[in-house]
């Protein structure tokens, strides 16, 4: 089995709850509880869960945006906490993320070109003008006309903005692309196109994909392995075919009924 590029090892994340005038801590929210997850080279993994399942928190943990309360996040085998300074910056190139909200994921004051130049500016240095060609190639990779480099986010449709978000995420040629509900805010036609784009990019670049969604149908289209989360815990993990044909956990079965919109199945 290929080594995991990014993995979560008994990872938990708690958020403290405060109350009162003196903001005393009264307890905590267990967003993620002791979760184990690994993403290997080139594979497409789906993470399915409803609201409150902790899937978005897990995404942010894996990408290094928030530190875990317990357990380890490993990049290329090493715990995240051991990656420092320049090494850490360099390692970041391997794990990137596509966000859910196309209208919030792009800086409204920067043009598309400026947004796409940023990863290069950070990692390769230099000014925006020097990266013009790289930016153009990115736009082509996500099937957007290169003239869009001069446009502002508000001049783009939701689907186009999401393509820019994807372009930004693949700029550094990551080995893992974490997609947190990438099509949830888009309509079904545009969403299907984005799914196809992700599939194509994954095949072309040999990227691993961690596709996070509440929509089992979308996940099943792209992923070979599916993980189910509920209330911060991982409840089932299996190959896509296995999970759909022979779900083991009752919650998974409910998700499947819901995905198929089976109104006749008994409640609970």
């Amino acid at each position, binding site marked *: 089995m290929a080594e995991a590029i990014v993995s979560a090892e008994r990872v938990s994340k708690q958020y403290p709850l405060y109350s009162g005038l003196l903001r005393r801590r009264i307890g905590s929210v267990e967003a993620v509880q002791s979760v184990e997850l690994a993403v290997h080279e080139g594979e497409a993994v789906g993470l399915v869960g409803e609201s409150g399942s902790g899937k978005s928190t897990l995404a942010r943990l894996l990408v290094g945006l928030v530190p875990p309360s317990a357990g380890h996040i490993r990049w290329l085998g090493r715990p995240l906490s051991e990656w420092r300074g320049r090494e850490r910056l360099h390692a*970041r190139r391997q794990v990137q993320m596509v*966000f859910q909200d196309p209208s*919030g994921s792009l800086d409204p004051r920067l043009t598309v070109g400026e947004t796409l130049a940023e990863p290069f500016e950070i990692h390769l240095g230099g000014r925006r003008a020097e990266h013009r060609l790289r930016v153009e190639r990115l736009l082509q990779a996500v099937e957007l006309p290169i003239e869009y480099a001069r446009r502002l986010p508000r001049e783009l449709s939701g689907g186009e903005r999401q393509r820019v978000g994807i372009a930004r995420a693949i700029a550094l040629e990551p080995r893992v692309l974490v997609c947190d509900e990438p099509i949830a805010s888009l309509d079904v036609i545009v969403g299907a196109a984005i799914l196809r784009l992700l599939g194509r990019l994954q095949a072309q670049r040999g990227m691993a994909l961690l596709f996070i969604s509440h929509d089992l149908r979308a996940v099943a289209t792209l992923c070979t392995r599916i993980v189910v989360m509920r209330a911060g815990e991982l409840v089932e993990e299996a190959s896509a075919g296995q999970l759909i044909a022979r779900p083991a956990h009752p919650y998974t079965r409910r998700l499947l009924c819901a995905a198929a919109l089976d109104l006749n199945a008994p409640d609970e």
Partner: protein
Amino acid sequence: MTKIRVRPQSGFGRLGSDPVLAAAGLVLAGLALLAVFAPWAAPYDPLDVNLAQALLPPSGSHWLGTDPLGRDVLSRLMFGTRISLLVGLIAVSVAVLIGTAVGAVAGFAGGRVDTVLMRAVDVMLAFPDIFLLLTVIAMLGPSIYVIMAVIGLTGWMGVARLVRAEVLSLKEREFVQASRTLGASTWRLLTRHLIPNAMGPVLVAATLGVGGAILTESALSFLGLGVQPPEPSWGNILNEGRVALGVAWWLIVPPGLAILITVLAFYIVGEGLRDALRRR
């Protein structure tokens, strides 16, 4: 069939449709030009003393009459524009610079840093501005530079709070998270993303602040604690006109009106900016 039409409500289209706002904008533009071209536009040298021509009412040769020392009021008023705008803009710039820095750091860092900085802001806000102003002026002597600095130093707190609030909410926005994921440094996040996006409300506050700064300068100059004669300021023209209060209305009304109209224009434009930003 019923057809209803509505005037443009959004963005800068409003400038075209709101006459009051357009007028205020024109006033400010005019003042700016006046400040720049005062030496050429003014009919007389504002410092030119001519006791023989003292306290003349408005006439063909002196449109706004002369002051107790025979200087042309209109020319002094025009040069006073420079002072007012200069003080207003620089004082507010000082406030914005300090306030943005403090607010951005507080909002971004959070935790103890935030708490400490914001308590400092609260303390400064509770301090009565007037005492601070008068104390500093008493210590350093009245001058235009002291005024600019002090008005700026008493005005940065509001900006700090605004910037902090904006940064707090912007911090969680996905585009900031995205830049963090790319590996952006704190400096980059602050200077390229957070602060530029926080500037909207700050611009509004700054515009309103200029109005307030002009009022403060005028008041101080009126009290003799601001711009010192013979340098003309609307406030000290008023002050010098006090001796001829009952007789020479042309020493009181023009500077008073100038202050009123200028400050009002800044307030109207500031409100207009706030509305324009809100609808974007």
